[in-house]
């Protein structure tokens, strides 16, 4: 069975928030919009975002590492948000594994957001319904878009090319391959949610200095050095 998902490369993500705002601008105007923004010009501007970037630091100076972690609905294969929904509004599609909310059936009880261990659901207080990442279902199947644009907005816009989209169950897909090749991992694997979205870990490039290339008795350097010794 197909399972569409995002794979996010933490080795190139610089935390620029491009995916978040491009998601916002696409989705507010598209099939599942608008995404309300409350008090947009006031003290506590807060809106509905399908995609948010968390930033973490670990380690003590100077051995500090910084991670930017883009986070959106992980389209879990065993999505806890689905069985808890009293009306069936929260559902997982058979054909592609995308988890969606049917706004018409949502009663705004928020049970799904309480059950989501990732905090990836966004309640729209204006519409009184739960909203969340749809993997841009209104792009990926839209035949009026050129084929190369039938991808989630966040993937197309990412300047660090840190986002991959595809079917993680298809061994021929790019996402399947990068997960395998680069040790893709999921968030909270022990929660039993079996998230579809994966992350690729940071790696560190090190250079081995080849000592044989170094000229330890560079005569020009020694000449200048001698000069200083003579002077002093």
């Amino acid at each position, binding site marked *: 069975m197909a399972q569409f998902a995002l794979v996010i490369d933490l*080795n*190139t993500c*610089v935390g*620029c*928030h*491009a995916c978040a*705002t*491009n998601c*916002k*601008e*696409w989705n*507010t*105007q*598209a*099939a*599942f*919009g*608008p995404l*309300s*923004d*409350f008090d*947009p*010009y*006031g*003290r506590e*501007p807060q809106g509905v*975002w399908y995609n948010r970037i968390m*930033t973490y*630091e670990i*380690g*003590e*100076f*100077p051995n*500090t*590492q*910084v991670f930017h972690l883009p986070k959106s609905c992980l389209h879990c294969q065993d999505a806890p948000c689905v069985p808890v929904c009293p009306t069936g509004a929260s559902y997982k599609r058979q054909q592609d594994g995308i988890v969606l909310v049917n706004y018409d059936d949502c009663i705004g009880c928020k049970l799904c957001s309480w059950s989501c261990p990732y905090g990836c659901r966004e309640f729209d207080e*204006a519409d009184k319904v739960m909203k969340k990442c749809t993997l841009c279902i*209104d792009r990926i199947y*839209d035949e*009026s878009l050129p084929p190369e644009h039938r991808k989630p*907005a966040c993937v*197309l*816009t*990412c*300047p*660090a*090319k840190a986002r991959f989209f595809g079917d993680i169950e298809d061994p021929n897909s790019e996402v399947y391959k990068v997960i395998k090749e680069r040790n893709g991992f999921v968030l909270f694997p022990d929660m039993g949610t079996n998230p579809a979205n994966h992350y690729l870990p*940071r790696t560190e*490039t*090190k250079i081995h*200095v*080849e000592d044989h*290339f*170094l*000229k330890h008795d*560079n005569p*020009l*350097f020694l*000449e*200048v050095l001698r000069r200083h010794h003579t002077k002093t």
Partner: protein
Amino acid sequence: MEIGGSFYDRKAYSTCYMCACRCGIEVYVRNNKVAYIKGNDAHPTNKGVLCAKGSSGIMKEYSPARLRKPLLRVGPRGSGQFKEIEWEEALEIATQWLEEARKKGPYKIAFFTGRDQMQQINSWFSCQLGTVNWAAHGGFCSVNIAASGLYSIGGSFWEFGEADFENTKYFMLIGVAEDHSSNPFKLGIQEMKRKGGKFVVVNPVRWGYGAVADEWVPIKPGTDGAFFLGIMHVLFKYNLVDWEFLKEYTNAPWLVIQAPGTSKDGLFYRNQEGKPMVFDKKSQSFKPADRIVPEGLDPAFIGEFTTPEGYKVRPAFDIFADRLVRDYSPEKVEKITGIPAKDIERIAKEMGTIALYHPIELPIEWVDVWGRKHKKTIGRPVSFHVMRGVASHTNGFQTARTVFLLMMMLGVVDVPGGFLNKPPYPKHIEDLPKPYKITRPDEIGYGEVYPGPHLGYLQNPDDLLVDEKGNPVRIDHAYSWWFPLTAHGLIHNVIPAAYEKNPYGIEVLMIYMANMAWNSSQNIPYIIKALTATDPAGNYIIPKVITIDAFYSEQVAYSDLVFPDATYLEQWFALSLLDRPPSAVDGPVDALRHPIINPQENGYDVRGWGDVMVELGSRLGLPGFVNPDGSRKYKDFKDFLINWQIRPGVGALAGWRGKNGDKHFVGEPNPNQLEMYIKNKGFFYYKLPENMRYYRHVNKDYQEWAVSVGFLKKVAPITFNFYLETLQTFRLAGQGLWEGKNQPPNDPILRERLIKYFDPLPFWYPPFEEEVSGKDYLLYAFTQRPQWMYHSWDSQNAWLRQISSRNYLYMNPKTAEKLGIKHLDWVWVESRIGKVKCQVYLTETTEPNSVWTWNAIGKMKGAWGLKPDADEGTEGFLLNHVIPHSIKIGEKEIYYGDPITGHLAWFDTKVKVYKAEDQTPETYPQYEIKPLPYIEERWIPVLRYKP
């Protein structure tokens, strides 16, 4: 919920203006509203991607801060009391003010433009006004990098050139860079990382791009120059030097006269034809440097020689080597920078061995200017990028020079895997334009044209713009003895100088797209005083302030007359090769903006500055705007873009010139040119053939083509200035030994400054603030740029301000512990000029001598369409309040800047931080302006954007 079906009515291609990167965009419109903005797949700058700012352009278009009609001030400056007036009245008032000022002397008009992307046109407009007083914003941005690059290699970073991300194996990013440039850098960093390259970040802060760095070098602010000199020490020690590169392409082997106390000292030893000389080891004789390649000379790099005339001479490299060995061993550099000596040594060895022993070979044949055919193109895959982190210190010019010299030593200038120029760069350094010289500000009279250019590159003291007493001719003190190699003008000095009437008062100050009343100035309390001060009769000391801006900024609130600008989606605009070029490394690029949305239909009675400029120029009858019979030359700005020519055949846009659009670069105006740009997705990209893409400083085919399109004046080697003789001419002037016409005033402080800092070889000295603040103010305070906001100004942007609506003072926990400060405490940040209250955020990402914050998020209450209780004006703060705008040297108060270029040294600021007694969560000092009434009406409780 319907899926599928076209989501837009129409689609247009244009150029983004959410920051300065000039990415291509696809704008999708529904019901005459912007539905979606996507990166343009075909555009060479961003290749389809778009950053957080570009993706939030919709919220700029529909910002509540947008001005809707011209404004005339009715209350005191800064009160926010305006009346809306019709365009006709606004244009008449401006015409009258400018005309009166011109009659008193055109230089009484000062026009300074901020994030200006039409600099050539705005400069030309100022020329027509007759004023010498125009510049854009480079003086506070990165002129140190531009100037040191142009003087050193005839090119520089950012719009002048960038790393060859495709081929580089080692990329070092130095200092604050997240804004310059946005998408190209992210694309580049990921590409080089994916290919296994090493990414090193040198920055007191690990954030942004630093997150994905393979190594973080947490340097102490202002010490980068010492770090690079330490690296060069190690490279020299282990012979990790590309001697062939230095020999053929730089003046490192040229002989420098050692004759202290004479007018020849420190100048190149030249033969009777004026040709610089080297000492050829093969023939043991002096030979002209231009014979190195043709005769296969083996010039000495080390040694002292005596010429037949009896001069003692040394190769430039020898003098530098002396310095490297004496002053910059890794152990000495560790004491300055805080970077362990073993790390300096290792880093140098890493970059040195990769550059020298892991060259790349591209199967590309090319021919050099000496006629030698190269079967392949050799590259050295080590690259660098420096920007404002290095630029914003009083040692910024010399520090940037250290990087350019390092690049020369490694042989990585304009080679595959190294740094690549973007055409029209590189340029012959001796052919760079000079500012048109006048020796009195009133030399250009009413009705006359200042021939221009306003900005450029001096070769020696005789090119300065000073009067016979040595006083500045320009209001911003650019090209004066105090700031000789200004290159981009000094916008940050204008308001203080106009207020102090130093060197003279002005009549009209015009500001376009710059927030000089707030985050683009320093010492804001003083700036506010300067803008509001009156003479005994009650008249403002800066009599008239005209601002052109689309939004209700602090600068607008402190203006007398405001022209409401159209947004980037509403106006004609050229991203020109005459300006800071939007080019790619593979070839020149220029681009267009055009009206996609009609502002009038959305209730905004606004006009793009270009249209206003044409209107003002025509009404004033300025020479360039009218025909001999007095009739208008240009109908509007669209007409201007098509037909204006700076010289015959060369206009704002280079593509599709000639009557039928069949000529590029040079050709008569094409009436359909702009439509051709639109048809070609908004840009023109002339991709050069492979054999013209590298070694352009000596690439014959490239240079012949560059001459044919006017980029270069000749086919000849562009010799890199390892040794910058121009600086020595100023040093000689300081010593009283310059034989030219211009002599510095007999001021010992000035003369000492020229002698000390105008060293033709780079060296490190502590930032100036160290001497005046060092003992009492132990921490460096500076700003970094949030990738999601900076350069898009508009913190009022409804989406971006949800990411950050306020800033903190970031600090290392160990530093805080010593000061008794806890996470989220409210503190005072105090410098020698004042203090600002803000909230602390502890982080291990910051080296212990530094505190920092995001720039430009703190706003004046009431500005930018924000409600008065918005975070930006309450808990957010502006560091600029404590950044000095001047410094006392001896008994003299001098504008704060790099002594060579005048670059504003924002990041020199030193502070002490202590816990505030009053923990009330609010910043101080507080300023407040009244929002315009119609802005208040736009404060909706919920925004539900779906056109």
